[in-house]
């Protein structure tokens, strides 16, 4: 039986969509699979014992953790401001917050260097305090914050803005201050978005390369994070570069997967159960 023309068009459309999706997923998955397939698990474990690798891994984890903490602490007020207030120049601030997402990391690193370097405006001010960011571990964190903050602020802001106004009205009539309402109502209700943003920015900070190498340099033990170590290894030892890449890949993948699998409802319930247990 011949299908009617309309359903044939629909069929073609469906086939096209499947092919398009398969093509993109292929572009995403094949390189990842290629990396993983290159490295026997035994090599991976052996390589983890290498002090140089451990050093880079530890530095990556420490700087990423610090950067993520700083992004959440400094980004929440920004997200709250953008979600709840209207003020002149708000559009400019919004663009400023989003800018690092589209800026080439090298350009970001250069900008950081000009601002926080010896000759830079902020750099001179910090020097008075005895602080020097370029080519220091703290510089790595600053570069990561600069590049990864937008990945937190955008979803956090969207989450805070989407909290139903009736809960905020209820809190106001229950005589709660703005701060109390934020911590007790807005933040818990926006928690899925806030946690998603934190995880995204954490993953972005972990993978940061361009801004870090431009601004903080590439000193083993001080500023050489995992992505930089991969880059260096690539110059001399391909197998080492691949192994390091896989380690980094496993961390990033686990982070993002953990985010998908952790139901935030559980978070509420757990906090609740703890309170009742007391």
């Amino acid at each position, binding site marked *: 039986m011949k299908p009617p023309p309309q359903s044939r068009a629909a069929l073609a459309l469906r086939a096209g969509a499947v092919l398009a999706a398969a093509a993109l997923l292929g572009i995403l998955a094949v390189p990842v699979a290629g990396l993983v397939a290159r490295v026997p698990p035994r090599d991976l474990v052996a390589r983890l014992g290498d002090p140089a690798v451990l050093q880079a891994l530890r530095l990556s984890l420490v700087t990423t953790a610090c950067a993520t903490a700083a992004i959440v602490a400094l980004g929440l007020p920004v997200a709250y401001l953008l979600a709840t207030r209207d003020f002149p120049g708000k559009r400019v601030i919004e663009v400023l917050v989003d800018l690092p997402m589209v800026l080439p990391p090298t350009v970001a690193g250069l900008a950081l260097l000009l601002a926080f370097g010896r000759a830079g405006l902020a750099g001179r001010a910090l020097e008075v305090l005895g602080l020097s960011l370029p080519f220091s571990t703290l510089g790595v964190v600053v570069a990561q914050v600069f590049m990864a903050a937008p990945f937190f602020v955008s979803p956090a802001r969207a989450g805070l803005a989407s909290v139903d106004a*009736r*809960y905020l*009205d*209820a*809190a*106001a*009539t*229950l*005589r*709660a*201050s703005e701060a*109390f*309402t934020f911590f*007790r*109502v807005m933040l*818990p*209700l926006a928690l899925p978005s806030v946690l998603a943003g934190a995880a995204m920015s954490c993953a972005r900070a972990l993978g940061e390369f361009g801004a870090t190498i431009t601004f903080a340099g590439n000193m083993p033990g001080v500023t050489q994070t995992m992505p930089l170590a991969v880059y260096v290894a690539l110059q001399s030892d391909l197998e080492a570069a691949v192994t390091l890449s896989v380690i980094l890949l496993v961390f990033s993948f686990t982070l993002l997967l953990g985010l998908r699998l952790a139901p935030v409802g559980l978070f*509420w319930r757990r906090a*609740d159960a703890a309170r*009742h247990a007391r």
Partner: protein
Amino acid sequence: MLRATLARRRGTFQLEVALEAAPGSTLVLVGENGAGKTTVLRLLAGLERPDRGAISLDGAVYFDSERAVEVPARRREIGVLSADYGLFPHLSVAENVAFGLRAQGVPAKAAHGRVAAMLARLGIAGLGARRPRELSGGQQQRVALARALVLEPRLLLLDEPLSALDVQTRRELRAELRALLAELPCVTLYVTHSPMEAIVFGDRIAVMEAGRITQAGTREELLRHPRSAYVAEFMGVNLFQGAIVRRADGMAQVQAADGVLNVADPGGAGDVFVAVNPREITLHREAPSGSAQNVFRGTVVELAPEPPFGERVRVVLGTRPPLVAETTRQAVAALGLREGSQVYAAFKATGVVAYR
């Protein structure tokens, strides 16, 4: 004492209202959807700002456009029960009720005691650990009420507190809510679109139409002298007053001026009001054999089709006591009713609201 004059314009909608209500009394603001009732509550609570006007509560000035006074919502001693209750979904019942106390810095232990007492008072002591989504509509309503009352407000604002409930629950909770409100020392402002609820809850009733109060008075005044088409609908509510002359098994007989009514016992002593919704009254040609405890025989005095299409018909009955029933045009035709026909009017004791 609540005194408020409120004026606000939004687009073409102009709201202009003056209110006054005494502590311990309930003022009902009744009107159709879009009349501006909820806006009045929001203006009083401080969730929206009037263009002009003044609000004072027990001597404290909350708003005065002349003197540029505006107290923010969180500094007003006002409790609000919104139509959807607005319970925090991520907090337990006890945490919801404790919210306002904790927000004001009451220590956890002291708050816990007051919360427990309030939950017990509203008959929901066992629900403290539950989440709002695990509660029935009636339970949610009581939690929201407890949450507002635990702060001991000077003014309680209720926005359609029964409308989110199904018919059966609404009937059960109506009497309970009325008893609770009667005990409260604060001013209560009750917003509803239902003339029936206005009659049951209002010590005074203010009728709102298109942003204005078109009539205000006691229920008797409104029943006797309706001054607008909307108020005239109140005429449909059958209201009687009398003493309880006999009680048995949770039922009571009320001796009204012109007849005896069987109702669910509202408890207490003294005169009670009995309100009968005309839609609860069924009409029969033969004496009904069902479970209705109230059956009256009489003649049809008047058949008045309801605008706009006459699908529903008001039937004025010469029974003792006199009743007005509301039925469908089909039912009138099926029964062959004409003015002068003999009929039986019947309603269940549970279809009646008896209250003090």
